């Protein structure tokens, strides 16, 4: 119940934030003439879109986590065995996320070579993470834990799978950004560099988010 309350509080907070209490208190309908008072319209639409999407993903995983924690209270719960591989995978994802941060810093300083190398590295480490997760699944099945064996196993496969799907979606965007980065820059076209800068930035936000999500999931898997 506590978690449920937390969730509703979060939903409420998001709503209030989105709707900007400040804006709601204005009486712009009484005033005539042009008024501009938008803090939003200066942001790139893609950035706003990404944050809204992260809200949706949060809602999805938070619900899973609530259910997970409630289910783990029951006596038939058999937690999954500690696995070194998962620690190793976690390290891979941390490196991937850090590389993206470096790429983002490089973009901030306009260093194209830095973008290229770090962006590529980020993708490689992320793919390695995903491969590692598949190995983790194999280990689990080899130990006789199938999806239907125990609810803990079922949740493990399901949540790692969903997390992986979200990373795959990220990799799709990453692939586009990376091909752009390796193209020969056109000094005439300022919007090209700006576009690349933005996609690197947004990729890094998404990766940090998914890293955080993974850490929470990992903690959950090992602590119950």
């Amino acid at each position, binding site marked *: 119940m506590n978690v449920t309350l937390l969730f509703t509080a979060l939903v409420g907070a998001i709503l209030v934030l989105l709707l900007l209490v400040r804006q709601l208190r204005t009486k712009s309908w009484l*005033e005539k003439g042009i008024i501009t008072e938008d803090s939003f319209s200066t942001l790139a639409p893609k950035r706003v879109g990404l944050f809204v999407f992260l809200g949706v993903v949060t809602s999805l995983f938070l619900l899973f986590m609530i259910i997970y924690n409630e289910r783990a209270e029951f006596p038939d719960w058999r937690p999954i065995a500690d696995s070194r591989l998962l620690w190793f995978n976690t390290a891979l994802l941390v490196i991937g996320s850090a590389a993206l941060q470096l790429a983002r810093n490089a973009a901030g300083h306009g260093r194209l070579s830095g973008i290229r190398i770090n962006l590529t590295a980020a993708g490689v480490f992320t793919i390695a993470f995903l491969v590692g997760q598949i190995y983790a699944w194999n280990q689990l099945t080899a130990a006789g834990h199938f999806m239907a064996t125990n609810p803990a196993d079922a949740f493990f496969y399901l949540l790692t799978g969903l997390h992986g799907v979200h990373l795959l979606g990220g990799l799709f965007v990453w692939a586009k950004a990376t091909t752009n980065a390796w193209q020969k820059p056109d000094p005439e076209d300022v919007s090209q560099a700006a576009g690349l800068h933005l996609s690197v930035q947004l990729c890094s936000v998404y990766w940090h988010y998914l890293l955080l999500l993974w850490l929470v999931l990992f903690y959950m898997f090992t602590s119950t």
Partner: protein
Amino acid sequence: MAYVALADRDHEQHLHHPQSWITRWVFCQDHKVIAIQYSITAIAVGVVAMLLSSMFRMQLGFPDSFDLVTPDKYYQYVTMHGMIMVIYLLTALFLGGFGNYLIPLQLGARDMVFPFLNMLSYWVYLVSVLILMASFFIPGGPTGAGWTLYPPQAISAGTPGVNGGILLMLLSLAVFIVAFTMGGLNYVTTVLQARCRGMTFMRMPLSVWGIFVATVLGLLAFPALLVAAIMMLLDNLIGTSFFMPEMLTMGGQGEHNGGSPVLFQHLFWFFGHPEVYIVALPAFGMVSDVLSTHARKNIFGYRMMVWAIVAIGGLSFVVWAHHMYVSGMNPYFGFFFATTTLIIAVPTALKVYNWVLTLWRGDIQLTVPMLFAIGFIFTFTHGGLTGLFLGNVTVDLPLSDTYFVIGHFHMVMGVSPVLVLFAAIYHWYPKITGRMFSDTLGKWHFWCTLLGTYTVYLPMHYLGILGVPRRYWSYGSDFIPDSAQSLNSAITVAAIFVAASQLFFFINMIWSLRNGEKSGPNPWNATTLEWQTPNTPAVHGNWGDKLPEVHRWAYDYSVPGEARDFVPQTEPPHEGVVSGRDHGVEH
């Protein structure tokens, strides 16, 4: 950035000018075309759902006269009817249809901010509809689990469609949610980002407010349905036990153990109750605009209306368990959910008062859209009042799972939103097509629909109080009194009458497309931006070379001292006075 002239916009905002018939009408990224695609698809499945209801009503009204509707078919039809109406018709038509059409036009934008994603949203929606429809053609047919799909019965032997239908249903829902998320990201971001110069939040028409908050609700609530659908799919396909308890089926030990059916109910209603407001809030918004325009009066209490929409949206996340009073719960939870449920009636009632006060001493034009909008006030009030009954645990217990509940939610979520949809279609038809519809046919349509639906749903409340349960294929003569059965027959006759009278609507829409009078750009003398476009119907890009600028709120009707009884939002203040604070620089 939102108000830069076309040539200066960043590359994403460039318009993809349609080249061929395919890019113009099929794979089109223009929000107006996508809106029409969404609407036509939604209405087409809606007709399927309506025909299904006529079929099972025949069975209920005249149980001994039809062999067509077997018990299995009865459950399948009821299930598909409910799910199609709630998700694939109402949600899709309000948000995919009107959301798409109105948001950019009413906010003075050229299009949604992510046009490609928007197009994708429609095609994914279409796939979800096709998956759902496919379940009619597979062996075993569609699922008959009821639209709430409660496990364990939904995936246990004996329920119709347990082998294929339920899988397709869950898959289709998952695909729908993906489509909705793509659309929803667009609607929210467009409202936040693409409003034209001068269009502040508190100048947005209430239609946009309703659609906006409903979309936020959807983005947060649909994940719960997705979670439920995924877990039930796994229970069914792989044999996990998320929802499935240990049980005996068909005389043997089942393969599951330890799952919680009540967990599904929590997830379903955590989505399900916000869902009813996902449908209701856009309806609230659109009906406000229609009432104000056709009463030639500003909306009463604009800010209160906005706050009410926001408050209802927030509260709708904390009332879900009022659908589960009979599932058993801690009495304190029952008390909590009954309280929140009754609290939500406050902002709702406030909106009703404001609509009535908007009409009060207005210059009411009884046009067809206005008739539907006024009809909505009646049906919604009736439905809301019965909601107050059901919100109380002790009153709900005997009424739950009876026709009283059917009466309640059809008044409030069936008839009311549909009346608004008709009001909206008639109201915006001239903008969408450039032609007027036939007034006579429209009025016939209104009166037959309003009186017909009342004849259908009012008696259901009485049946419910008698104790007639819902979801029964046939009652037999000992189980309910003859008088109840003859009422059932009468309801069926009325239902078929209502279904048939929708022909007025379809004939009108199609006939007027070619033969309607040319409407001109602003036949209702309305103030909002969509009526001020340079072309009618609006063309790709909406506004020609220059985006509109907004100088006032959306409801300047019958302003004293003005020459006309409406002042468009684009009209600058007169005498060169700019009231209020120092404009343009504030951040």
